[in-house]
């Protein structure tokens, strides 16, 4: 196997891992707390930018470049995302899911505008380059392999932790809330607080994914991660993985990313004037894939209660 192929496979696996982390975070918000976040790209970006600003070497034209160690940068991203997630959740929790979707997209867009316009802090449209990557001083492909193992390890830890939490007493409360919110409230549980905590945790995980992605790509910009596409892909991954559970999240990430990346590989063989067009075809096909999956396999996605009989006649 030639080096090119090895590197490609490593990158495929790494990106899958990063998206798996993102999708696990999404599943926390959706599968646990039943909250529809359409602004995933926002939390992703916060994690990415926070770590980039903190860990890059000093730069003249912008704030930041504190050259801090990578774990610190990642931690900062995670923390910021968690705080923002908590704030958004507490404010928006009362909204119906459609409204929450619009609000989260709105917030993500405002964030993107800020990232683009406040160049003194974020480098504006040019973004931030030269972000350090763990193990980059090692010889390739071993450096890449180590990074992949790091990401894979994080996926495993997260997966185990979340599964544990799901089966813990805390997780039981979350499940009760998801199945029947009014009953849980009547039983004295602070539904809003629980959900906000979960949303915040999910946001934190998304921030981690964003931070790791920034280190991996060594560059970020306001549109570098194609925010709508990232949000959309994460949702497709969760839905394609089926029934909004954790295994589905990781599986979905793998399958969808392989399809996404694999089709890119195929289209690279096409003549040049077809190549740009091919990216549009790929987006179209992913959109179509979402429709197919939604129509065929989405029944486990939501706990859909049968219609409740009216109060005066129940029994």
């Amino acid at each position: 196997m030639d080096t090119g192929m090895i590197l490609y496979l490593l990158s495929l696996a790494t990106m899958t891992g990063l998206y798996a982390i993102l999708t696990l975070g999404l599943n926390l918000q959706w599968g646990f707390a039943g909250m529809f976040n359409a602004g995933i790209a926002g939390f992703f970006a916060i994690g990415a930018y926070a770590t980039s600003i903190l860990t890059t070497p000093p730069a003249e034209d912008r704030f930041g470049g504190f050259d801090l160690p990578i774990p610190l940068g990642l931690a900062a991203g995670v923390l910021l995302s968690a705080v923002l997630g908590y704030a958004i959740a507490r404010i928006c929790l009362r909204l119906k899911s459609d409204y929450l979707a619009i609000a989260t997209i709105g917030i993500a867009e405002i964030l993107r505008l800020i990232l683009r316009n406040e160049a003194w802090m974020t480098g504006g449209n040019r973004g931030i380059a030269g972000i350090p990557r763990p193990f980059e001083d090692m010889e390739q492909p071993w450096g890449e392999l180590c990074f992949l193992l790091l990401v894979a390890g994080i996926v495993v830890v997260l997966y185990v932790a979340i599964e544990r939490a799901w089966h813990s007493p805390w997780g039981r409360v979350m499940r009760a809330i998801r199945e029947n919110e009014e009953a849980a409230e009547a039983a004295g549980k602070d539904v809003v607080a629980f959900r906000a905590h979960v949303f915040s945790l999910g946001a934190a995980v998304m921030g981690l994914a964003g931070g790791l992605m920034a280190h991996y790509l060594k560059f970020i910009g306001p549109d570098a991660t194609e925010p709508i596409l990232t949000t959309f892909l994460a949702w497709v991954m969760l839905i394609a993985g089926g029934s909004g559970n954790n295994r589905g999240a990781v599986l979905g990430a793998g399958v969808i990313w392989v399809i996404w990346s694999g089709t890119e590989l195929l289209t690279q063989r096409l003549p040049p004037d077809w190549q740009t067009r091919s990216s549009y075809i790929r987006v179209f096909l992913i959109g179509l894939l979402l429709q197919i999956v939604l129509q065929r396999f989405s029944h486990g996605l939501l706990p859909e209660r049968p219609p409740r009989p009216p109060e005066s006649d129940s029994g």
Partner: protein
Amino acid sequence: MPDWSTVLDFVGLYLIPGLVTGSIYALGAIGVSLLFGILRFAHFAHGDLMTLGAYLALSVVTGFGWPALAAVPLAAAGTAIIAVGLDRAFYRPFRQRPTIISVIASFGVMLMIRSAVQLIWGVQSLEYKSGIEQPLVFFDQLRIQERHIWIVGATGLLVLALHLLLTRSRIGRAMRAVSDEPDLARVTGISTERVIQFTWLIGGALAATSGVFIGIDSHIDSYMGWNLLLPVFAAAILGGIGQPIGAAAGGLALGLIEELSTYPWIGDNPLVSPDYKTGLAFTIMVALLIWRPTGLLRGRQF
């Protein structure tokens, strides 16, 4: 007492553009509000219906050599029919499911429309016609672009026509009935599927018109509709869910607020930086959702 030249400047550079932006938002918001009311979900692909309409008009303009305004009916009809088709393929399967699934589906449709547009027409920014138009001049100082008069005027007529449709016609009343109580409407014999299809026709046609107007006012590119999606949602929420005329008013208000916000009300600098102008609508919308989701005109709480 402000001098006339400042006033006329204000009108020409801020007020009129505000009305134009407002008209564009209004036409999009009406469709979103109707769909929100009758289908009960947030149609995320609405912006890209606007994009589609603009590009269909472009084909008519380049194909037949007509001026853009003349291409509106064809573009509107084409988009309307496509909208009905999209509903049949991607939204109708979910009529009885929780509405969030339709939202997710519309997310996908949004990307599908956009990528199809990019595939067919490419990604460069385009214009209906090249060259600079001379503005009309009133009172020696007031400069208004002729196309702006067309846009605002046409929007006014369309809103009036919609109002008449909703209040005087059988299908219009049926639409309002389905929006109020879909189950009761079924009992009275109204075919909710017919009403839904008709709503898509109207929503698609108005979205297309809005898209062409954007193109006439500035330019066309594959992200134009997406850029308008959030202001359009904001306008629909501002006017109250399920109240399409309110949505039109909301759109007009938002457009004016957006343009007027960049006027140097205090001192010499714009009140809101033009970079953040588009963020203003989002901010208003988020604030509305949090503090007054029924909108200013007290629409339905979802």
